[in-house]
């Protein structure tokens, strides 16, 4: 072996090419040619190094060492490919050992998309109790005891001596609490569970709502319309349009129902009832009586409020056929939300 003609780069390139071309049958022969203990090239190189000129030894030693390591690694890496076909090897088509993928509940996914939008716009997020009293759920919201919306048929009541406790039918009570502790101007949203005595494929006795409230001087109906339009485009895409229809809620006046243009069709489909519009939320200008209940001057400040059902949006977005799927936590259902 003559080290004066040996060149690290050339020799390595030569090896790489031969390894790439060698069949599995000839692999062992190639290995012996390079790594054989007695006559392998590496052994020869190490032997030759002893007789090399002293001044060349450090560089040559380093090169040879690297060369040998590379060759050893290369054979190791090549080995599985060869032995995969043997009985003791591994089957590359078997599934990998992998950690589980978790999943976020579709209601959270939907709510997060909304909360992210509103908090980026500077809306505060408030949480409130699910068991409310008559004042926060009804009276402060301009819904006196004589109001038909107070019928037992809709509201779950809690057994207690005062007879005053109930499961909130809307998250608006959280907004009343917020107004009691904050001064305008502000904008806020209140997400949470709400309860109504209803149970069928599109209604659940417990469901989720997000309600929004913006209060300040100079807030008018046009701001409500613009805000909801922008929100609808965030949730349903840039092409989404909204349509307002007059409606009635005890705590807003004027009030409106809001339809969003159907995201599934252009000329009408089953989901939109062949109308091209999907009813999605209720809204209005805050009733002066609500402001009075929290000690704001309704002559000075105005505001708008809206409420949206999270289930409805989630069901539309993910084509969920039955609202009950959302609370059964069937693993086959949850597994479908590992994507996205």
């Amino acid at each position, binding site marked *: 072996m003559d080290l004066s003609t040996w060149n690290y780069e050339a020799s390595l390139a030569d090896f790489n090419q031969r390894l790439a071309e060698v069949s599995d049958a000839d692999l062992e022969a190639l290995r012996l040619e390079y790594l054989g203990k007695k006559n392998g090239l590496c052994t020869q190189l190490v032997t030759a190094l002893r007789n090399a000129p002293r001044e060349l030894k450090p560089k040559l030693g380093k090169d040879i060492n690297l060369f040998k390591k590379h060759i050893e690694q290369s054979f190791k890496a090549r080995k599985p490919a060869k032995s995969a076909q043997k009985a003791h090897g591994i089957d590359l088509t078997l599934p990998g*050992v992998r*950690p*589980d993928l*978790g*999943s*976020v*509940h579709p209601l*959270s996914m939907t709510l997060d998309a909304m909360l992210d939008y509103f908090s980026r716009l*500077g*809306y*505060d*997020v408030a*949480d409130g*109790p*699910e*068991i409310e009293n008559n004042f926060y759920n009804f009276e402060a919201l301009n819904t006196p*005891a*004589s109001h038909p*919306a107070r*019928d*037992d048929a809709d509201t*779950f*009541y*809690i*057994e*207690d001596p005062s007879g005053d*406790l109930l499961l909130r039918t809307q998250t608006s009570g959280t907004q009343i609490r917020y107004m009691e502790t904050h001064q305008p*101007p*502000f*904008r806020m949203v209140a997400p949470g*569970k709400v309860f109504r*005595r209803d*149970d069928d494929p599109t209604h659940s006795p*417990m469901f989720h709502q997000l309600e929004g409230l913006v209060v*300040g001087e*100079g807030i*008018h*109906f*046009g*701001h409500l*319309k*613009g*805000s909801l*339009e922008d929100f609808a485009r965030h949730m349903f895409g840039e092409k989404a349009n909204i349509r*307002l*229809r*007059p*409606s*009635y809620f005890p705590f807003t*006046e*004027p*009030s409106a129902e809001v339809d969003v243009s159907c995201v599934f069709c252009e000329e009408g489909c089953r989901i939109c009832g062949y109308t091209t519009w999907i009813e999605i939320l209720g809204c209005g200008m805050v009733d*002066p009586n609500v402001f009075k209940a929290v000690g704001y001057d309704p002559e000075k400040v*105005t505001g708008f409020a809206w409420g949206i059902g999270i289930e409805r949006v989630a069901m539309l977005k993910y084509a969920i056929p039955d609202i009950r799927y959302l*609370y*059964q*936590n*069937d*693993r086959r259902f949850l*597994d479908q939300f590992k994507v996205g």
Partner: protein
Amino acid sequence: MYFQYEWVAQYLENAPTLDRMMDILNATGLETERKGDGLEIEHTINRPDAMSHYGVAREIAVKNGSPLREPKLFGGDIAALEGWTISSDDPAMCPQYMGLLVENVKAEPSPQWLVDRLTAIEQTSHNFLVDLTNFLLWEFGHPSHAFDADKLAGNQLRVRFAEKGETLTTLDGNDHKAEGYLCIADAERPVAFAGVMGGANSEVDENTTRLLLELAAFDPVQVRYTGRDKQIHSDARHRFERGIDRENMDRIIRRFLHLLLEQQPDARVIGLLDMNVAPFERKSLVLRRQRLDQLLGISLPDEQVMELLQRMAFRPEKIDQGWRVLPPGYKVDVTREVDVIEELIRFAGFDLLTSELPAMGGSSYRPQPLLVGERLCRGVLVGMGLQQAVSFSFAPEDAEALFAAGGEPMRVRNPMNIKQAVMRRNILPTLLACVATNAKRGLRRQQLFEIGHVFDGGREPHHLAMVLGFDRDRASWFEGDQQHPFYHIKGFVEALAERLGLALTFRSDVPAWLQQGEAVSIYLGERLIGGMGCVSSKIVKFYEFDQPLVVAELSLDFLADHDLPLPNVTELSDQPAMRQDMAFVVDRHHEVGAIQQHILGLNPEFLELLELFDVYEGKPLEKGKKSVGFRFHFRAKERTLVSEEVAKVMETVVESVRKTFGAVIRI
């Protein structure tokens, strides 16, 4: 509520087509669908004015600015009724009661036109007299009632609350205790629930010749209470509890007479007694231009405002500030300035509004530690492969009680079924029900968590619950899973605690819902915040679990005042580490945690990390012994350690462990 197109159209000049009518009504806020030859309208609570064919026509007339065709009325004189008394104990309960007495009437079959009208809106025809009152209800929206005057005792009617022992059999044949409910009574007994339903005792029948027609106004709240308690959902109740048009009552009497005499010209109008103890007066309201613009954000031109107010019969008068208006009797929900504004924009149309975003100073967003912390928890758990669940806040009483430490849950007074009878004090009762259902469907392997409110007296703590369900039959489970399930749930809790920067401690005394010896209580400082491990055998039995299962439930309320850890980077040493493995053989009753704590408590010099790498029992160890293997990582900051230094430290450690735990070094 269903309306016949042709019937509505008869009150309109140039009536629009059915489809056009539908669009107009939808635009004004009456949610309308086409159904056959008519309109199905879903009224909001504030719209009794449109719960009649005339009312629907009026809505269209106002929107279109076209005139109404008024129905024909009786134009003759009506005498005052003598020899009868009508009274109201409380004017607030019944401010007005008109009693019209007509003799020589016949309860004969109705003429075809009337039968057709009622049939078209799915009403049953009874006899002409009753059908007429029903027709009037559907024409004008004001319920009236026909008494057989011969069945009324003492020529008197009194609106009063029924007294103790009084009863009433209503027209639908049901018997009711009447005490405390607003009734119409003759000289002897109640003959009708005011505004809800008449009594069988004074009903018009085929022998009736003398008719007393009631047209009255009742307190909506009383009507609602009677109807709700007696579970009577009549058309009359539906309208009275929303409000009726006091200004239209004279006209309805004349309309009734017109229709009656047209069919039965021999009927004798004896007289009308109009008890009116609180006459209706229009309330004057001021609509300010400034307020109108402030709320709508646009300025409707003066002429348009005036035009719309006139169309709605508000009798507007221009004043300096804006307008003075007198809303008509049919606008029962217009009592304030803001109500007038709503009516204006309703008919002007929301399309006129601008669409803009409010310009509002700085952000209102103030991150709330509890909400931020919860979302962080969720992210961590999902990242570790858990799936988020949502289950009901109410639970079955028996399941809920299994997890509570005594006391009473809050109960739902009117649950829809017994599975929703109490408010949960823990999440696990409802979450495990889902887990059990999954298992019965063959989906045993589950990794679920839920975050939500629970209910504890007047408080609503936020809780986190986790469940790991195992499926030992699964063929290809990987190796790590051969560990006791307890270690899995503990791992999740420990990882979460690390992420949140919590120094949790675990104690072996557990509440009854956890299995002693296979579960621990979780403490944050001295505060008990939850538990984890295997559930009690009682719970296993209750849910019929046939698989290994571990759970955790902890209160997250501490997040409200917990500062999430801020990473604080320490300098990284370039010096090599020295590793030393050491296995101690001790009696098996010694807890590994205690040995580990002991070693760390010695604070060995240069020790950077102590890892547990092996716990082993069995041959060749003696029975009752176990081997606990630790890997010690040593490093000095500024220099390379020499093995003598490490050996010296190890010597101290080994000696101390030997003394404290009777440990022997395993070689």
